[in-house]
């Protein structure tokens, strides 16, 4: 789990080394982040500054809270996203960065700051969302219009399946657990649904939920039958190996699917806006960025922050322009960013990250797989999910 990102890091270093920020670090700094390409690029720049150790782990979200609550904290700087940042902010495990930004943050811009009551608690590096990616060559061959809703996707998938140009027309991150729950969350928000009221009582609209569940099953019928073990990386590979023609995928993978070093169909995959639900886009808006641990010395915090600033130097961003939809200065939205920008413009909502929502998300992720396999009907699955949520939320004192 750890070696893979490291090998990847080596490969990316060759690409990204063109732009090295002017930096030198004397205080030992350690980072813990997710393992997708943007973090590999940023931590590689940090390594170039010296005295730096990076841990890239795609399951980092399971650790962040524990490593930051110990005193001293086990990592100086940590990469978080909006959902993972909730407990860190709530429990005040990260330090306000206002003074450090004033001293070393000349390269950063205001749209990168996550501010709570005036305190900047995190600096975002990139913007992330889920949007449509499709094989332009296949779409042109079969004269298919670019779909904007899921029903249009199914029509397109039908045509592609009939033509037999790829193994499976659709790809999707339907892996049981967090991913599967996330698919539901996106669809359901797209239908204008709400999950919880202000007292954390579930207010899931059953009709909307059934509609979404049925749609998920329809989508799955166009996918590789092993969809319940397929995560984002698996879908990315399916694209790269030319096995699928359409997927609604994370914007952070838009660079990878067209990477000529990895993809057999590089250049043929086009980005478009996230698919629309009946109320708003069935995608959520995320940010990914950096926090600095609270339980460390001021000296370490300053060194850590300087590295963060160096990693987001405009020259670095410009040299790796298509690796992500960067929020940092130096980014010129290219072809890979088209989908993300269009999705945001269409009004995709932010992921409703709260502690109670995390419990709900887990219940959805666990409970939906029995529906997808056909073990439960929609009514039983939803009732079980709500019961599961209630037990877990009560145990966490959220209800």
């Amino acid at each position, binding site marked *: 789990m750890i070696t893979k990102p490291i090998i990847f890091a080596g490969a990316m270093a060759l690409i990204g080394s063109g732009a090295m920020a002017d930096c030198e670090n004397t205080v030992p700094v350690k980072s813990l982040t997710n393992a997708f390409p943007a973090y590999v690029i940023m931590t590689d720049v940090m390594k170039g500054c010296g005295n730096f150790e990076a841990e890239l782990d795609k399951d980092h979200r399971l650790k962040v809270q524990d490593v930051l609550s110990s005193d001293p904290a086990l990592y100086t700087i940590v990469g978080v996203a909006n959902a993972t940042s909730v407990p860190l902010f709530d*429990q005040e495990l990260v330090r306000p960065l206002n003074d450090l930004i004033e001293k070393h943050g000349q390269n950063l811009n205001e749209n990168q700051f996550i501010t709570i009551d005036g305190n900047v608690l995190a600096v975002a590096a990139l*913007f992330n969302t889920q949007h449509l990616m499709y094989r332009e060559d296949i779409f042109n061959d079969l004269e298919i219009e670019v779909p904007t809703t899921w029903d249009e996707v199914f029509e397109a998938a039908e045509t592609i399946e009939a033509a037999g140009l790829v193994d499976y027309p659709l790809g999707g991150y339907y892996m049981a657990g967090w991913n599967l729950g996330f698919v539901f969350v996106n669809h359901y928000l797209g239908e204008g649904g709400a999950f919880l009221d202000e007292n954390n009582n579930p207010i899931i609209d059953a009709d909307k939920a059934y509609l979404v569940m049925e749609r998920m099953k329809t989508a799955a019928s166009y996918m590789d039958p092993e969809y319940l073990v397929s995560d984002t990386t698996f879908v990315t590979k399916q694209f790269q190996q030319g096995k699928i023609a359409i997927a609604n995928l994370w914007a952070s993978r838009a660079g990878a699917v067209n990477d000529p070093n990895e993809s057999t169909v590089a250049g043929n995959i086009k980005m478009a806006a996230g698919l629309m639900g009946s109320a708003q886009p069935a995608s959520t808006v995320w940010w990914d960025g950096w926090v600095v641990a609270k339980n460390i010395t001021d000296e370490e915090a300053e060194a850590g922050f300087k590295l963060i600033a160096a990693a987001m130097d405009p020259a670095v961003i410009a040299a790796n322009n298509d690796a992500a939809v960067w929020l940092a200065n130096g980014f010129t939205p290219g072809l890979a960013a088209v989908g993300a920008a269009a999705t945001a413009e269409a009004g995709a909502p932010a992921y409703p990250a709260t502690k109670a929502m995390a419990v709900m998300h887990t219940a959805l992720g666990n409970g939906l797989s029995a529906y997808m396999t056909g073990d*439960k009907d929609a009514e039983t699955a939803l009732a079980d999910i709500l019961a599961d949520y209630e037990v877990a939320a009560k145990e966490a004192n959220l209800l």
Partner: protein
Amino acid sequence: MFVGPSLILMLIFIAAPLVTVFWNSFYVTKPQYEKVEVETCTPGFPKPKCTTAVKQLPLLDENGKVVTETSFVGLESYINVLEPNRLRAALEALDWNALNNIEFWQALRFTLLFTLVTMPLVIGTGLLIALTVNGTIQSIKGPVIFVSLLPFIITPVIGALSIRWLFIGDGILTAALEAWLDRDIAMFAQGWTIEILMYVYRVWHVAPFAFVVFYAGLQTLNNDTLESAIVDGANRFERLRYVVIPHLMPLIIFVLLIHLMDAYRVFEEIVGFSSQAYVISLQWLTYDFLMPDEAGTRSISRASASAMLTMVGIIVLLVIPLRRAWRDRRKIH
């Protein structure tokens, strides 16, 4: 005096955690919250978005730790895990599907079946390898033993992952099967194929252990008894049935007990094959309760209850063969 150090270590590493888990299963620790209105600004594309909303924030004490309250809940966590009401409803309606829809009973179903199916296979395969190796010529015995032991040396999770990669998607073995049977195969698209892979994997992994134990037992087999059996006209099968197996019986019981304990804690297969959508085990259930979600919430109490139930299950399973062995011993003396 001599057992002192090991006794202390057992107290620290076995008794203490056990007591803690037992205690945790009857108590729930809840963080305390307050409601605060906060203004949050997050990045938008291209402009930042600011919202003011009432948020539920944990109460922090003067050291910055979350204030928690621990209360006795009795059997509540056990009830939440076992869901006796749904169990009763499913049993009364004789609805197998409804029973299988309750997580704990679904996990128990697989765990028991897994244990009972792999047990005879492990003992049988182990015995077969031991007899085969015992029968080969002396010069190649060493290499043969080494090769037979390899599966047991591999770390279980790594072994499970390698099998998974051989079969997932168009893995080479799936591709080979597809070419051979001339049809599209997806090993990870339904529960029963994953279960078969799990059984096969576990037997492959543990049989070498049974083999080593049985092979050692075969070395102590009295040749005179075997020869006199041959003189009496016993064929190969009769010699196995009346001489070899009775001689190995204590070892077979030993392997059986170890295997029962091991197989009931099946976990690596679930993680390695990421089969949780189709098949879950009791250990995996405990693990799932214990894993923090995105916002760091864990279900410690239910995890403890489920761990205690697993332990009770192992004890029940062990009592049956142990009582038999005990009775047999008494008969002999």
